């Protein structure tokens, strides 16, 4: 495992000051702005801060550069009009509101769609190798429920390419970072935030971060479901849980996007359960068939077919499977073999290679897919001009927040949200002064010591196995609060969750609890 590094001289770590008056040792780290999360949203926020002379500290749960964002494949939306000149930010906003069933924050949406063309040009300037048209413009492909070709892409590894660019830019600016750190609590009195508590995942040592402002960019909560498209220890709700615990309001938590096409474990093996087959496969012409060979979307959506909204396509697939027209392995077929091999290799290189490794030739045969929990529309409620939450000095950005996507999200809009709002939040924060930070109130010092003592006690013993509890929770959510829901089932599952939570609380007092 890579050791902790910092770029440049790292003025924010105050020399390993440690405190042991509580019996539990911890290191104190000071920074004007603590950015929790090193995905696209955290990285873009940090870039704006650094460009404006504020040196934030960026932390993440994994090695630097390896955030959930790297899994984003299909693309990022901006009304550039490379292919369809008629497109505009206003139409992009209208498509977003339609998909969100008018629960989105319209001003926030318009902000994102307005600035996206500039954010794409900026990424291009910083070196993101977007696929280009013959004329040299940024190429754009179809994505579900969008009126025009609007999704810019780097093959089918857009997120990875984008994050490489952003991390490269942050390194140029010498943004300090610290990797493999897990934050477990924010220092908050419910009105104001003073920093965060956590531990170093390499050696288990405790860390107290004191900050003038904390930006939560810690991702979403779709991985609490059993079958999901994220890595297991990402997107498990840390961001919203930390914010809720600190006194911030959450919004739209009931909205979880199920992506129509996740891989089927029975066919490809357990490690591929729920893994995403990017929407770009359908955007480039991929078709869905049931086990009877019927192109069933003709029945559900004759006009938009496979590219109708994700919830429509996911429910259609779920229904085909439930009504006995699924494959033996519990999926349906997705087929793009009518396209030329060279086209597939160029537009969908990662998918092509992944299936080739599994002995499946995308250019000759279909793959088996079923819906998978993918994205959380809900999260922390923020002000879209600043990123402010209702708690002083606490900001949030990226998938951790709610409001841009409403009741459902357009594919390609979340990468857009991360860079569009990251810049806005960073620019806003850079206008604040962080010259003098007040001393940490005694109540917060006590909170820190108690929390570290709890963590310490938790590290050793316990009767429950966390993986088992999480597994049970994931199954319960899946079967009762999944694609299809009903009041009775939800009430039953809440009772069961309360039992799980009670069992857990005896092990983990003070830890962030998923709401």
């Amino acid at each position, binding site marked *: 495992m890579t050791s902790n590094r910092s770029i440049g001289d790292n003025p924010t770590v105050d020399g390993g000051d440690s405190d042991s008056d509580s019996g539990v040792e911890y290191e104190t780290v000071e920074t004007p702005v603590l950015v929790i999360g090193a995905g696209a949203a955290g990285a873009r926020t940090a870039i704006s801060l650094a460009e404006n002379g504020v040196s934030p500290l960026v932390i993440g749960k994994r090695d630097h550069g390896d955030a959930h964002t790297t899994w984003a494949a299909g693309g990022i939306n901006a009304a550039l009009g490379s292919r369809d000149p008629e497109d*505009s930010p*206003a*139409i992009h906003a*209208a*498509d977003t*509101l*339609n998909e969100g*069933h*008018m*629960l*989105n*924050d*319209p*001003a926030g*949406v*318009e902000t994102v769609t307005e600035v996206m063309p500039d954010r794409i040009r900026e990424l291009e300037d910083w070196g993101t190798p977007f696929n280009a048209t013959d004329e040299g413009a940024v190429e754009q492909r*179809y994505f*579900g*429920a969008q*009126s025009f070709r609007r999704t810019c892409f780097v093959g089918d590894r857009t997120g990875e390419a984008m994050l490489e660019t952003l991390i490269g830019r942050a390194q140029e600016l010498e943004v300090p970072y610290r990797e493999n750190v897990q934050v477990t609590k924010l220092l908050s009195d419910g009105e104001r935030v003073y920093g965060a508590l956590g531990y170093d995942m390499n050696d288990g040592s405790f860390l107290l971060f004191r900050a003038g402002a904390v930006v939560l960019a810690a991702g979403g*909560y779709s991985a*609490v479901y059993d079958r999901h498209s994220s890595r297991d220890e990402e997107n498990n709700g840390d961001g919203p849980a930390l914010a*809720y*615990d600190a006194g911030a*309001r*959450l*919004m*739209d*938590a*009931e*909205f979880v*996007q199920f992506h129509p096409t996740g891989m089927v474990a029975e066919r490809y093996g357990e490690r591929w359960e729920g893994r995403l087959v990017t929407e770009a496969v359908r955007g480039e012409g991929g078709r869905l068939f049931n086990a009877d060979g019927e192109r069933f979307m003709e029945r559900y959506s004759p*006009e*938009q*077919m496979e*590219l109708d909204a*994700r*919830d429509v396509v996911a*429910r259609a697939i779920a229904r085909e499977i439930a009504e006995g027209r699924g494959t033996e392995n519990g999926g349906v077929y997705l087929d793009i073999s009518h396209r030329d091999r060279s086209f597939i290799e160029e537009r969908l290189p990662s998918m092509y290679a992944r299936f080739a490794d599994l002995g499946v030739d995308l250019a000759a045969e279909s793959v088996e897919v079923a819906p998978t929990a993918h994205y959380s*529309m*809900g999260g922390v*409620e923020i002000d879209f001009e600043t990123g402010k939450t209702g708690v002083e000095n606490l900001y949030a950005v990226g998938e951790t927040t*709610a409001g841009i996507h*409403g*009741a*459902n999200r357009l594919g390609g809009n979340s990468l857009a949200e991360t860079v569009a709002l990251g810049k806005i939040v960073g620019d806003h924060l850079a206008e604040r002064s962080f010259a003098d930070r007040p001393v940490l109130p005694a109540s917060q010092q006590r909170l820190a010591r108690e929390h570290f003592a709890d963590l310490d006690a938790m590290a050793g013993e316990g009767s429950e196995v966390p993986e088992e509890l999480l597994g049970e929770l994931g199954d319960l*959510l899946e079967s*009762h*609060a999944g*694609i*299809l*829901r*009903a*009041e009775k089932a*939800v*009430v039953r*599952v*809440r009772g069961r*969750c309360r039992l799980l939570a009670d069992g857990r609380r005896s092990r983990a007092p003070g830890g962030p609890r998923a*709401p």
Partner: protein
Amino acid sequence: MLRGARERRESRGAHFRTDFEDASEEWHRNLLYERSFDGMELTTKTPDEPSAEVQDALDAGYELDYHQLE
């Protein structure tokens, strides 16, 4: 998530209730979740209206024409 899934007695976007299959105008609202003295408190708010320009784009009824892909 479960509280919200129960509270929202309609179907909208990614939230589908088999006992309330249609969207309800009454639920053109966001659910807010806040920690309170005795547990979680749920409230609602109505989203703002879009700008005139975006409203025009909504009224124009743009949508994806799949058959261009064929």
